[in-house]
């Protein structure tokens, strides 16, 4: 994996280019990037932002009043289906909202609509036949949903055994429609068939190779590599298809186009930055956790919450506490 570029910028406004806690992204068929701009809870800023790989700002939608179709409380994950419809999970409102690529609201799926309890819907992924797979944080399970919005299969319960979960977060599919679940509080990745049969498990708690601390997202690339947002360890961990360790990514952010634009208008800060070395050499003992390293070193990951791949197999890592997305390409 080779670092390519960074897109994004911190914002202090609800609209316009820039992010306030970006949480996940997904790609429309034309490559347009849709990003959850979460905002602060109850701030009323939650929205979906639209931009391109070249950092062209397109627009945003959301920020509706409570009970409005454009209102989001804890939006957490996005996925597109084959018809270019965007699905958004909200784990506070316990619903899935559907929009088109212009940001027009289409439909809402809640427990009544699905014919199934839906408690804390988090990660979402959609297969080539438009079946949805949604993890439910509070029910500790995967909920498989038909293209017309009926829950057809559920698997999982709370626990630490194979097939059990503890506050699962992200999930993804490989080329054979096997389901990979980021089993967040169990610090592992579990693999299932599309019918929910357990296949294997990777990882355990820790900071070493093959160890995780609260993995939040997982994606499988074209070579079968398993790419994990090792959120609590502030890094990305890549495993081979058999689950053996391959490599870490720690982040190498550079200035995005928006960041350069901002510095062009704020020369004093740019000049001070040029005189600085933002790479840390030494930290006191009580500030050496990955969290503290991430907060003190601008270029490394700080809140790497989501990993996604575009049509060219480029890896996008969304960092909620740095308001940016770092992009890597395959070697």
């Amino acid at each position, binding site marked *: 994996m080779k670092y390519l570029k960074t897109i*994004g*910028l*911190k914002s*202090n406004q609800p609209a316009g280019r820039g992010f306030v*806690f970006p*949480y996940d992204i997904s790609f429309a068929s034309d490559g347009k990037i849709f990003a959850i701009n*979460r905002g*602060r*809870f*109850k701030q009323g800023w939650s929205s979906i932002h639209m931009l391109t790989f070249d950092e062209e700002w397109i627009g945003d939608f959301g920020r509706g009043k409570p009970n409005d179709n454009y209102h989001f409380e*804890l939006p957490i994950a996005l996925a597109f289906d084959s018809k270019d419809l965007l699905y958004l999970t909200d784990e506070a409102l316990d619903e899935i909202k559907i929009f088109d690529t212009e940001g027009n609201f289409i439909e809402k799926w809640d427990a009544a609509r699905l014919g199934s309890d839906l408690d804390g819907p988090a990660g979402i992924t959609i297969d080539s036949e438009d079946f949805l797979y949604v993890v439910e944080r509070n029910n500790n399970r995967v909920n498989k949903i038909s293209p017309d919005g009926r829950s057809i299969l559920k698997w999982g319960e709370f626990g630490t055994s194979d097939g059990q979960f503890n*506050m699962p*977060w992200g999930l993804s599919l490989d080329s054979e429609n096997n389901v990979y679940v980021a089993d*967040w*509080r169990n610090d592992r990745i579990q693999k299932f068939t599309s019918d929910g049969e357990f296949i294997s498990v990777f990882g355990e708690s820790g900071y070493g190779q093959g160890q995780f601390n*609260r993995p*939040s997202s997982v994606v499988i690339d074209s070579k079968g590599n398993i790419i994990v947002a090792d959120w*609590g360890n502030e890094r990305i961990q890549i495993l081979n298809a058999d689950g053996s360790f391959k490599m870490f990514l720690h982040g190498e*952010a550079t*200035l*995005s186009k*928006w*960041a350069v634009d*901002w*510095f062009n208008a*704020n020369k*004093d*800060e740019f000049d*001070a*930055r040029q*005189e*600085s*070395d*933002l790479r*840390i050499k*030494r*930290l*006191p*003992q*009580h*500030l050496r956790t990955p*969290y*503290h390293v991430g*907060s*003190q*070193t*601008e270029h490394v990951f*700080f*809140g790497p*919450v989501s990993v996604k791949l575009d049509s060219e197999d480029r890896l996008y890592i969304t960092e*909620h*506490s*740095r*308001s*940016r997305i770092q992009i890597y390409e395959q070697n």
Partner: protein
Amino acid sequence: MSYEDKLLISHLLRRAGFGATPEELERYISIGYENTVEELLNPNSPENMPNDVIFRLFPEYHAAIGVDAAANWGYRMVTTRCPLEEKLALFWHGVLATACNKLNYPLVGLNQIEMFRQFGFGKFDNILLELSKDPAMIVFLDNQTNHKDAMNENYGREILELFSMGVGNYSEDDIKECARAFTGWTIANADYMELMSQKDSIWPYSRISWHFEYREEDHDDGVKTFLGETGRFNGNDVIEIICKQDATAKFISRHLYNFFVADEVPVPQWNITPPKDPEAINKLTNTYFKDGHDIRSMLRVLFNSDFFKRSQFEKIKSPVELVVGTIRSTGECQTPSIDMIKAVEEANYMGQSILFPPSVEGWHTGEEWITSGSLVNRVNFASDHMSNLDNPGVENIVNHILENNNSPMTPQQVVDNCIEVLGPLEISADTKVSLLEVASKLDRIESNGHSLQQKTIELIQELIRMIVSSKEYQFV
């Protein structure tokens, strides 16, 4: 165990923590007073609200911006199993005060609190050393602008005046020499970080937390004469000299007494007003020297002393003590929600905004917590939360008040039960008369084994509301 012993342990838990639920009190009673002191002094596993769960729901806590940082600490105080660790961090936060509104980055304030947790029980020399290297303190008192060829005395002055010896125990020359010793003690990328802080800049990718850097080339390595000693002193050397002083021992002892035992006059008056209990201060001062400036040893002597045990209800609760103590009793905020932000904001309205003390002097405590406005906030907060039966802790309290009563209780008994389960508390005769008047509305207060009469529950709610609204409840 006698009622007096129960009063004593609950007093200890209020002062060395934020109070106790009935179950917690029972556990501590079972192990005894001295063992409780030792357990509090040696925090093991705090088991507080885990950060991962908070951060997952609220990334704003992960980034620690604004009131979210204060609420994060609030969660620690409310849910911890090691209350003295948090109470001691609160103590140091008030004495070695750093205000995040100047820094524009509360995460560095939270990092300082973490430093207090790590070092707060240990040797005072180490606390001062870590404080001097703490980035939040460095920027708060401008030591990043304290240069070899252009001195800034701010930190050199305050470490003597407010953090160790107190006014009247050093000279202006000592201040200058102290400041010289701390030249070069700065933060990495100081100019850029300071500029971002001054401009409240969040760009391009949000704030960058700070870390300590020592610049030898910017350090004044010349000979200094400080508090009667001469040498090429660096910061750690002057700290060692400071900590040997009688004045330092007395100053820290008096701060510990003020925070844990009884309200003193405000610190600016300490050089003219003697301590309330000079013998107590002497006892703590002796321990300071005997045990190598160890704070844990001083606290052990303090909590086991007669002067502490006699001091029940002699302090006015700080807003944080009142808010956190109430929330711990009601059992609220056990899961991440916006409620903790509301709770810390309430403490702010009462006059204490954690991570944002009004100045480097910290807060003026004791009677100064009480104004006409703050008193209304305090009473309303406690009565609203403690009389809400939807709060699991309140339901638990009501059940404890009524438990083990298969026969009807008299109004006197139910009043006594309320006072005991809520504390036990010390209630004046006048207040008891008022409570009894209300309790006497019911001729018979009954509970049977399977259901509680609604009238009884309503009565108890009313009594709880009256007790937590009373003058006596403002004391700890």
